[in-house]
């Protein structure tokens, strides 16, 4: 195991003329759960999407297990070690849940159909929807869909899981079931980067918290420390605002 698992060096990202990430340097170690928070438009999604090169950054580099993403000869193979979970689930609507989960293991990782399906059933059990394998995404509730999407990401047997606001599109009672799955994952030692506004989750589950604003990391602290005394005014304001809402 290389440490750090992810090493971000002087990373900058532009969308056309707009600088969304401004010279970010940071790193993430294996086995840790890090929550990323910050106001809308601060660059949280962009940062996550650079880590598997869903966005082609213009400056700097990201090293995954020491491998430079910029110079990676086979980016698809590298991506197949990183699971990603999206706000709107993004399950493939024309495939059953089982097929959703087995697609990448079969075609990106070269698993046999039988192995991939066995793995899928184990994972569906783990996210508590073992009985939904044959159904199609639109036949599931939002919470079930997101748990299926988590199972799909876990089917890559990833070394890192990226979550981009996984509960923002869900009703409150469904948020709980998704957060429970994520908490169990963290407990099992999965390396996780989670963009979320769920501060209860952040406080209970995460090891560290990053606060972003304006394309920069304004603050990064151990979780307990962050909640007892955030340093920057912007982080304090943000926390006040978000905790007021709850």
């Amino acid at each position, binding site marked *: 195991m290389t440490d750090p698992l992810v090493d971000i060096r002087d990373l900058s990202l532009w969308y056309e003329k707009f600088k969304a990430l401004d010279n970010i340097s940071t790193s993430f170690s294996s086995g840790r759960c890090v929550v990323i928070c910050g106001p809308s438009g601060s660059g949280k999604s962009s940062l996550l*999407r650079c880590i*598997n090169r*869903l966005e082609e950054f213009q400056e700097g580099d990201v090293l995954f297990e020491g491998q430079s993403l910029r110079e990676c000869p086979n980016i*698809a*193979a*590298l*991506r*197949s*070690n*990183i*699971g*990603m979970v*999206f706000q*709107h689930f*993004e*399950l*493939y*609507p*024309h495939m059953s849940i089982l097929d959703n989960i087995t*697609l*990448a293991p079969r*075609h*990106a*990782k070269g698993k046999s159909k039988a192995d991939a399906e066995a793995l899928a059933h184990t994972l569906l059990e783990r996210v508590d929807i073992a009985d939904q394998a044959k*159904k*199609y*995404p*639109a*036949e*599931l509730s939002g919470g079930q869909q997101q748990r299926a999407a988590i199972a*799909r*990401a876990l089917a*890559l047997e990833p070394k890192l899981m*990226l979550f981009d606001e996984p509960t923002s599109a869900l009703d409150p009672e469904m948020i709980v079931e998704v957060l429970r799955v994520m908490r169990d994952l963290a407990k099992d030692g999965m390396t996780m980067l989670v963009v979320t506004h769920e501060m209860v989750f952040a406080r209970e589950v995460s090891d560290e918290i990053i606060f972003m604003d304006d394309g920069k990391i304004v603050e990064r602290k151990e979780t307990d420390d962050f909640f007892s005394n955030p340093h920057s005014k912007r982080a304090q304001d943000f926390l006040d605002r978000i905790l007021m809402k709850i």
Partner: protein
Amino acid sequence: MTLKYDFDWPMLLEDPYREWIIEGFINTVYLSLMAWGIALMIGIFIGTIRMTRSPMLRFIGTVYVEFFRNIPLLVQLFVWFFVFPLMLPHDWMMSWNRLPHVPFLTALLALSLFTAARVAEHIRSGISSIPKGQFDAATSSGLTQVQMYRYVIIPYAFRVMIPTIASEFLTIFKNSALTLTIGVSEITSAAKSIEAWSFHGIEAYSVASVTYMTTTATVVLFMGWLEHRLRIPGLIAKK
């Protein structure tokens, strides 16, 4: 002066008229089905490369579509029939002309390439209608671009596009009538010959019209059934 016209419907069942009608019908259906199949394959390919990141591939796709879509089909038929063989090297031209069914093959070529451009446009708009997140999900899971299109994007787009693809078959089917101009013995040309031989134009063209109408209705029914079979469970009910 009164207009006098003696209807003679039973004559259509006599040879040679009966034979011409059957041959015409078979040729029309053959030509349409084959052209449709080829047009789908080429169209899916061209439509997909227009959506990739490669500027070169996108350019090739655009040139293809603009070229074949903007020249009237009748002109394309004539070009393929009269001009194209002249541009071949001499021995090639000789072997081309010696092929059996040159008009049929030419018609097939012209109809396929013309319709492929239209299919490509449908595919492109079908693919554009797919949420960007689907591409992100497939890419982030380590699928290659080709795998992503093969397993996720095209099957998805295809289901969205079943009605359009069906109507493209109907268009080919009706466009195939134009091929009589280069001597394909399809159903409209059969009607024309019957009229010329028997002077019974009403009966002759009625056969052609009824053929187009019933085939169209059959295809519409079949596509409705197919659409229902391939519908994405849960998705339609929710709309």
